[in-house]
């Protein structure tokens, strides 16, 4: 815990909570049919109290059934992706680790599309495998693959890690595209665009429960692990001398992140770089200590993706832009700067 920034931290946290609420209201009001933020607020409050909002039912339906779930999903996914970046960076002691860059998200997408394909083939026999479950398995396999390729035993160099991620990502993307094209119009199969660039357009109230629960539980878990995350950043040996069973903790953490990424990707495809951008920005705001960084990162991740989704909806008059394009446009330059722009080497 940084010694000085306690007041500042409380201000930042409450500021971000407020900003998140305001962002969601504004995000809901924006779109093809523009709705007054005050109306949005009124509709949300009324619906939450079980009342009929005093606006045109069509407007209320757009707000409550389409836009609110979508904004909430954006917030949940943003929070989850920021969290996954933070935890992965501590687990492999590298500020560039992130589900998309390391190919974990691609692994999840293979698992998801394979499950959908399998489900559509086996549906006649009544076999249904949860798509999130399949995505989790895919993410898990990709995680193990990346860590093995990067050489988990030795001190992983940045170059090896990034290359391992690129390899796994390329393989998984090819595989999932292959499955998508093979599957044709199998039931529930989304387009390749959905899986590789992400979309929040299908958000429904029903679909929010699982990701929200997973993000909430995993965030709470890691809030109880902030000391260990801090110690891990010092490096493997230093963490051991601080009493941490690094191998065991790393396994648990990467497993939980695979679960998180699996669930998120199964809901909205691959949205890259959020886990890179948010931790990086927030570290400069509150420092590297996870007690401060984790809540702030999760909140800001939520806000970030809510606005990224707004951009994706309003930039083109003809329709949605895949949200992954927006996040990549912001994240890739930062990735480049972190990878090449720093004379301080990353131990390559």
């Amino acid at each position, binding site marked *: 815990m940084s010694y000085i920034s306690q007041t500042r931290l409380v201000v930042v946290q409450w500021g971000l909570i407020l900003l998140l609420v305001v962002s969601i209201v504004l995000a809901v009001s924006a779109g093809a049919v523009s709705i007054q933020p005050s109306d949005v607020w009124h509709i949300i409050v009324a619906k939450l109290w079980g009342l009929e909002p005093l606006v045109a039912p069509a407007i209320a339906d757009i707000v409550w059934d389409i836009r609110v779930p979508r904004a909430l999903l954006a917030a949940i996914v943003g929070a989850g992706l920021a969290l996954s970046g933070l935890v992965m960076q501590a687990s492999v002691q590298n*500020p560039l680790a992130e589900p998309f860059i390391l190919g974990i998200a691609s692994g999840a997408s293979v698992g998801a599309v394979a499950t959908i394909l399998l489900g559509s083939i086996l549906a006649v026999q009544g076999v249904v495998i949860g798509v999130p479950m399949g995505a989790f398995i895919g993410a898990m396999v990709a995680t193990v693959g990346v860590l093995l390729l990067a050489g988990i035993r030795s001190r992983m160099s940045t170059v090896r890690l990034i290359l391992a991620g690129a390899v796994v990502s390329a393989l998984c993307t090819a595989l999932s595209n292959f499955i998508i094209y093979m599957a044709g119009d199998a039931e529930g199969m989304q387009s390749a665009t959905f899986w590789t660039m992400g979309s929040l357009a299908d958000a429904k109230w029903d679909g929010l429960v699982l990701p929200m629960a997973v993000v909430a539980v995993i965030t709470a878990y890691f809030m109880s692990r902030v*000391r260990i995350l801090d110690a891990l950043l*010092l*490096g493997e*040996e*230093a963490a*051991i001398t601080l009493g941490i069973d690094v191998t065991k903790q790393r396994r648990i953490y990467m497993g939980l992140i695979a679960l998180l990424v699996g669930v998120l990707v199964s809901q909205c495809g691959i949205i890259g770089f959020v886990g890179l951008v948010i931790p990086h920005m927030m570290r400069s705001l509150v*420092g*590297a200590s996870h007690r401060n960084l984790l809540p702030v990162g999760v909140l800001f991740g939520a806000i970030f993706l809510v606005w990224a989704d707004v951009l994706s909806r309003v930039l083109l008059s003809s329709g949605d832009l895949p949200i992954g394009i927006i996040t990549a446009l912001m994240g890739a330059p930062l990735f480049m700067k972190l990878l090449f722009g720093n004379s301080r080497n990353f131990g390559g």
Partner: protein
Amino acid sequence: MRAIRIEHLRYVVEGKQILQDISLTLGGHEFVGLIGPNGCGKSTLLKHLYRVNPIQQGQIYFDDVPLADVSIRESAQKIAVMGQFTHLDFDFSVMDIALMGRTPYKKSFDDDNEYDYALAESSLNKVGMWHAKNRSFMTLSGGEQQRVMLARALVQEPEYLILDEPTNHLDITYQLELLKIVKSLGIGVVAALHELNLAALFCDRICVLKDGIIQQLGTPKEVITESTLFNVYGVESVINYDEYDIPHARYVVEDLHSSKCYEAAPNICNVKESPMIGDHHV
């Protein structure tokens, strides 16, 4: 009895014997130095003590309990380590780093309490870094970073402190300062050291390792001798003793400053290719 007891420790990596049958007891509050040439197994031995290397063969007892029966968390409450300089990619404040020393004592949701802060303050004061408590660790000089790392180790309230070549990146001022602080703690210290004269100055006992075998173990006066230095390092020396009988090695390099250098060892003193001083020898 409070002691670290190493018995018949062996360690093999890729068919190479790094440690061969090491037995050593480190007791109480003494300052034990490990010296020996590069690759002699100093770091490997220490990494066994601080749980980074698994025990392949042999046994280590901590207060008569086999290390395998002590959890990593428990041993971190007793042994603190100041390792070789580690580069940090993440921006922590000096205070953050110091408080990390409390990690082995904390449960999941435990906050840092008054005691932790007081301990961090006194430790940072001991190493002279309290004034920099809010500074970013990354912006400190190498010497300052080492001192903060020492403070972190002190915050662990260890019974033993392991120094794994701690002075590598420090100039002589900081080397002396660091070892003085460590010496004043009154806890057991095991330190791998490169500089023999520093080892002689600070250690109660010195253990000489070569090829994974303990060559000698004893007081500085017993160990730092002309024959040991020659046998272990292949270095000629003359040992002098100060008023406290502390040995001090003066290294002798044959003919280095005599004009007969070229004749004596033309392959070593290849002065012909050096136009600057070549004239003296023609």
